[in-house]
């Protein structure tokens, strides 16, 4: 068993719980964990206030139960260990993590996995905006590790991605892979407008219907399959060089079948 946190009551103004880091909690006893500080607006409170905490065997594994959709920064900067979240999570889940695993059975809010260096995040539900993206002004977003979302993602998934893998089971919003410079993004459902805007490198693979592509996406050829992050994806794909507005371009691959309208 591991450290178990059950949401009791999240304050009206929301909660920031960046202390929920498996490696840090794993080394502490129950009372010590309970005294860790979390923030509700400008007020701090002990972790034991909003959460019921139980510790069988101190271990780098944290379970969170209940509705944590307004609890931000869970797993921020974690380097090892595991978080299992049986419900929804708030913003910045696992941002800047360098290792370890986060599994979410519900959905997550925006900036999930931003600027992560390594480790893995799997989300059964949906993700909001800037999945694996970059914070304002940063020159790079995700730089390693993997994010797998079974549901849909919002806008600017993989913004400024330098490396790593993002897989989105359903659709995504506008500007998928904006300013992507490395790594792999695969979207299985319908994709919004302007995918690959400002791309300078990396691979953006869209298996669903794409609303529209940019003038800066230059059609190259049709390819039967694509090798991405160690797996072979069966096509055929329309292969584009994108974005001609930049110095260098990345690879935009769009499944032919649902996207006849793009080549009309």
């Amino acid at each position, binding site marked *: 068993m591991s450290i178990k946190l059950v949401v009791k009551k999240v304050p009206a103004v929301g909660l920031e719980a960046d202390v929920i880091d498996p490696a840090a909690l794993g080394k502490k006893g129950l009372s010590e964990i309970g005294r860790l500080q979390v*923030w*509700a*607006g*400008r007020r701090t409170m002990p972790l034991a206030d909003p959460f019921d905490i139980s510790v069988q065997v101190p271990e780098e594994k944290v379970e969170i139960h209940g509705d944590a959709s307004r609890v931000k920064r869970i797993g921020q900067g974690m380097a090892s260990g595991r978080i299992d979240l049986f419900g929804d999570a708030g913003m910045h889940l696992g941002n800047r993590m360098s290792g370890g695993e986060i599994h979410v059975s519900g959905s997550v809010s925006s900036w999930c996995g931003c600027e992560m260096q390594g480790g893995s995040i799997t989300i059964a539900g949906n993700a909001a905006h800037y999945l694996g993206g970059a914070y304002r002004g940063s020159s790079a977003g995700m730089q390693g590790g993997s994010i797998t979302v079974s549901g849909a993602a919002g806008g600017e998934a993989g913004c400024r991605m330098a490396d790593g893998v993002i897989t989105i089971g359903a659709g995504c919003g506008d500007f998928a892979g904006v300013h992507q410079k490395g790594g792999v993004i695969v979207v299985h459902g319908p994709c919004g407008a302007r995918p690959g805007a400002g791309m300078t490198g990396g691979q953006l693979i869209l298996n669903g219907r794409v609303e529209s592509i940019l*003038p800066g996406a230059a059609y190259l050829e049709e390819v039967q399959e694509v090798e991405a992050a160690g797996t072979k994806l069966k096509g055929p794909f329309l292969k584009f060089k994108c974005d001609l507005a930049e110095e260098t371009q990345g690879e935009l691959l769009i499944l032919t079948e649902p996207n006849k309208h793009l080549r009309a």
Partner: protein
Amino acid sequence: MASMVPDVTCPFCGCLCDDVRVVLEGGKVKEIYNGCALSQSRFAEVRRTENRNLQPLVRKGDTKVPVSYDEALNRAVEILADADHALLYGWASTSCEAQIAGIELAELLGASIDDTSSVCHGPSTIGIQDVGYVTATLGAVKNRADVVMYWGCNPFHAHPRHISRYTVFPRGYFRKGREDRKLVVVDPRRTSSSRIADLYVQPEVGHDYEILNALRAMLRGAKVAGPTVGGVSIETLQQMVEMMKRAEFGALYFGLGLSMSRGKHRNVEAALQLVRDLNAQAKWVIGAMRGHYNVAGFNEVCAWETGFPFSVDFTRGYPRYNPGETSAVDLISNGEIDAILTIASDPVSNLPAEVAGKIRTMPAIAVDPFKTLTTEAADVVMPSAVTGIEGPGTAYRMDGVPIELRRICEPPQGLLRDDEIVQGMLQRLKGMGSR
């Protein structure tokens, strides 16, 4: 006895024209010269009182009763100090001195502070944080520009003297007048500003990013598939690229047509990159058509005081910045705010109705010379002198030039200035000792 005050700075829009001449009679504004229609209204309203708040009010039960400033300030501080996460919002139509005090108040409270730029040119600033801002003061354009482009803005309605005082009509050091400059207007509406353009480009609504992307690709020599992009023909786009490449000095001014339509900060970023790329073979600058007369001032003050330009969260005692999370609309609609101070702005009118509704459910303080939906909805109302007419201060023009605001007539009996009111709250909060 009438007297004339020269070189008055007009406190309305981002043009911050400082050549207004005001005729005073009996200590009241009689009429003004050089000011545009907006300026006329701005100075005229000061004569009337029925549209003004003249007395501090505090809600007791379900009615608001007149009180002294002292009592209103105490009640305001009580509300703010009691909140877990207060928001101090507005700031765009007041002096830098009030803004400086407001940021210290937000820090001391552990509150968030944001100005109207998060729902105006905030996305433009976000674009600047991605790719930079190749700009110039308005005078550099007046003296040198031979191509002036307005994209997604209608100066004749929002910045009436921009074209005549700064960019296309005036005599510059190297330009004699209108005949020396090419005017290009890009707008889905056939606006009055487009009527005088040498080239009018009419895109489909919400396709600015596609058009800018095409222009940038063509500038790099790429062939763009036609026949049209965003409703604009390839030939027109090619004509634009040629004109831009041949310019001796080009200036692109953009408005909320880019920052508010689909793509928001990415639209602005594409325009910023287009102008940056043009500098490899020509000389181009770009400028945002900032709305209120001191919205640019808040971004400057907030940047030197906190490091960030707007949407700053002090809940942890130090500044954090993440528009989309720490910006006013998101904070309120996500339910993270439990008290609000609004100054020099009317969010209950201008923000989405859902947000206005939530403001009505929380303790609210409003500081404004005029009756607005926000002051009507507030629990504490503190009237203030009209900055720039009844109170002095500093403001920053849309191009970052700081200009003095003047006091040219007395405010109604006993009214305090915005900065005095915010200082009043600040000193009372400091007096409450550390909590």
